[in-house]
């Protein structure tokens, strides 16, 4: 067990952002909705990680948890969001020394510590992370924008109609790069040019309503880039746009990623977009990740019945002239800890154990490289009962860990 732990940690150190067992719940009068229920994943620099799923599966809540934008009655109830941007860790360790645990000096990570220093070279910190999930609001506010930026779904509403586009980009520039006046305007113009807006010097003083949908989304991306982030979270940035503009925006994001070595977390429900832009994909269902693989593997060889259902419901992939397959029913509201498979009621391959055993992410088979599915059918190269047993033991192991 202990050796496994270290290898896991090794792997995770390469990630710019690693999310570990994130739980975000909304506490309403009627029930507690576990919108994000034990989600773990990581994003490396220069990589695009997709999160796909139906509406209401918890994609946006995951993104907002990372941004620290969860509002009452929602709350992050558990887990870690470790951000490893070195600049941010260095500034944070200086600024919030009281909440910093310095492992090199033998500190233990205490309850209120959210900055962890893991390695030092002399006095300079070379390795460490900030745990966004446990950071207080003022610290989160410093990370927002400067290290992690977000592009929202609807460019129509994510720009304030009463300020010029330039004004809004300059607001971000002022906050994060301390630019003002003419300098800021010049930088705003060059950002608009960077996102491919023609005639930027004129456009910079126009209002959002004078922009078309695609240009507005470009302006939103420019605003996000104004903070010079290392991680960009895109929450369905192409959903409100038509297909040609979609393609342009995706192209733009790729270019920007190459130029700036951005890590991108890309949230969408559009499988076509995923195929276009993502390196690795996480499929989300009812607050949990049900399958994760590289984009190529996922599309070529989907394992989870839900992923298979999603892919077979894309019109262009099914040209045989048959009726388009659909997944019957809706995403259930995850309002209790799962002791069963949440997809079981809609699953064509469900069997009895699905009602009693909660599946966890498992390698789909022995030789699988980085392809996991949370389904009792896997690993597929062991007998069914053994597979179910594995899920069950890992579940109870997780439970004891929690109760500790």
């Amino acid at each position, binding site marked *: 067990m202990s050796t496994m732990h270290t290898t896991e940690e090794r792997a995770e150190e390469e990630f710019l952002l690693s999310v570990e067992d994130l739980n975000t719940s909304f506490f309403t009068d009627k029930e507690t909705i576990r919108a994000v229920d034990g989600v773990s994943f990581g994003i490396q620099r220069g990589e695009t990680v997709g999160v796909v799923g139906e509406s209401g599966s918890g994609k946006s809540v995951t993104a907002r948890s990372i941004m620290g934008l969860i509002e009452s009655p929602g709350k992050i109830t558990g887990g870690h969001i470790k951000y490893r941007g070195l600049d941010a860790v260095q500034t944070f360790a200086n600024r919030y020394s009281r909440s910093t645990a310095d492992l090199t000096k033998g500190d233990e990570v205490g309850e209120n510590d959210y900055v962890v220093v893991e390695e030092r070279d002399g006095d300079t910190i070379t390795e460490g992370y900030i745990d966004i999930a446990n950071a207080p609001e003022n610290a989160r506010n410093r990370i927002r924008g400067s290290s992690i930026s977000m592009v*929202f779904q609807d460019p129509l509403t994510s720009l304030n*109609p009463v300020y010029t586009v330039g004004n809004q980009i300059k607001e971000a520039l002022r906050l994060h790069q301390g630019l003002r006046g003419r300098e800021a*305007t010049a930088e705003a113009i060059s950002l608009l040019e960077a996102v491919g807006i023609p005639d930027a010097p004129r456009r910079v003083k126009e209002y959002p309503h004078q922009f078309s949908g695609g240009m507005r989304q470009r302006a*939103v991306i420019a605003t996000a880039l104004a903070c010079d982030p290392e991680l960009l979270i895109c929450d369905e940035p192409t959903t409100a746009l038509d297909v040609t503009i979609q393609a342009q925006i995706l192209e733009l994001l790729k270019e920007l990623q190459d130029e700036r070595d951005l890590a991108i977390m890309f949230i969408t429900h559009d499988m076509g977009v995923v195929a276009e832009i993502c390196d690795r994909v996480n499929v989300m269902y009812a607050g949990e990740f049900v399958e994760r693989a590289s984009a190529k593997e996922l599309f070529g060889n989907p394992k989870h019945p839900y992923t298979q259902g999603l892919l077979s419901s894309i019109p262009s992939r099914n040209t045989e002239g048959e009726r388009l397959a659909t997944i019957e029913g809706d995403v259930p509201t995850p309002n209790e800890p799962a002791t069963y498979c949440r997809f079981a009621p809609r699953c064509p391959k469900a069997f009895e154990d699905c009602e009693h055993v909660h599946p966890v992410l498992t390698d789909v088979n022995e030789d699988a490289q980085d392809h996991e599915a949370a389904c009792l059918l896997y690993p597929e190269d062991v007998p069914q009962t053994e597979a179910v047993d594995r899920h069950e033991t890992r579940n109870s192991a997780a439970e004891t860990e929690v109760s500790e």
Partner: protein
Amino acid sequence: MSIESQYSDLPLVERVKNNPRPAAVWTGVFLALIALEFGAVMSTMMAIPFHVALDPLLGALPNAISAPLNGFFQFVAGIGRALAELPTLLDRTLIPNQGYSTPSGWEGTFLGLAPAYAWAIRVFVVYAYAFVVFYWLYRGYLVFRENYRYADWTPTDDMIDRFRGHTWGRFGLVVVFLFVMLALFAPTVSPTTAGANIDNPYGHTVQYYDADSGTVQNVTVGAANLQSKSVGDRQNFGIGSYDKYNRFHPFGTLTSGKDLFTFMAYGARVSLFIGVLAILISGSVALTLAMTSAYYKGILDLATVLVSDSFQAMPQLLVLIMLAVTLDGTWVAQIYSGALLLALIFGAWGWTGLWRAIRGPALQTVENEWVDAAESFGERADVLMRKHVAPYVIGYLLVYGSMNIGGYMLATAGLSYIGIGISAPTPEWGRAVNLGQQFIISDSWHISILPGLAITLVVIGFNAFGDGIRDAIDPQSEGAGAEEVGATGGGA
């Protein structure tokens, strides 16, 4: 348009330097207009009772600090007084209306005209000046908009255009403007002054021509007032009348023989002071609370609801009467004959309604994605609310605020009518209504009716102005909506 794009990223000063002519012309005319009235501006400043606030403060401080501080204040006050002495265009002494009638004509009045004409000319000049200044300020905005503004178009342009096409709102603006100017220029537009006619009538004299002896005599204003009482059918000095001492009374006299127009002009100051101060207090409290409760929501919002409900649950009139009675004789109640106290009470209760009115819009605006977007790039909470939420709420605040001002004035008049608002000698319209009510079916009907009509008109004016603002800030009311409101307004 083409000129503008050249200035795309220059600061305003640079933009003005590049094209100084329109700005220079505008500024020159504006400075000339201000210079005409500079002394009056300063004397208005000096009329503010600074000592009331400063004396307790200075008394509380140790002598070592308060002595030099007091010296400094005296020095500033000295400069202020000197500047206040500067002659001004609209000074009443430039166009005097007080004189006496000799067999050969009027003596002492402007160009020997009858006091009524001299007074009318002065009022006309005052309002003409005020309108010109107001227009010039608007003109200044247009100059800025056409020559120097960074953007070709802003949402404000549309608001102004919509307001300009809003008949009912324009009517309101005119009424409000007339009222505010009446208050601002009270010493000039009044046929006599409050100091001479109301506050200290026995300390001032007035000249008159004694026909029996054929000489010019002096009489104290107090004694003259005794001869000019309006007390019903027995003796009355009504609208546009002269009394026995050749004094002109445009709106007649009060039961005490004092001039009603002077009383109303100075009364307008009190009403305006209370209305504006109360709305500033209640408006800023409401806005601050709306912003914080919309940002933090949950328990804070609930707490604000509870507090505001508790305030509203108190019977306001009884609380007002109680406070007015208990605080009677304390220093708060003495400032401006209780006007400050009333303004504070109205402010302390007024925020509840205003907050309720803007809470919904604030909560709604916070939900917009641009607020999240601004938050996601790390905007501080206070800047976030001020920049991205407040502009959407301030419009509502203007609408309700302008309507509430009318309400506060009405309440002030009502309280003064029942004798617990503004105490004598400070003029207040409600007190005039009260004074004249026993003569309302006699010749002296003007004592009650004129102030009553004036209150009604001003309140309607503020409400109409509020209506106009509401339609102006609502982009959906463009065109037909404004026309309809205008039509009903004209009919009503």
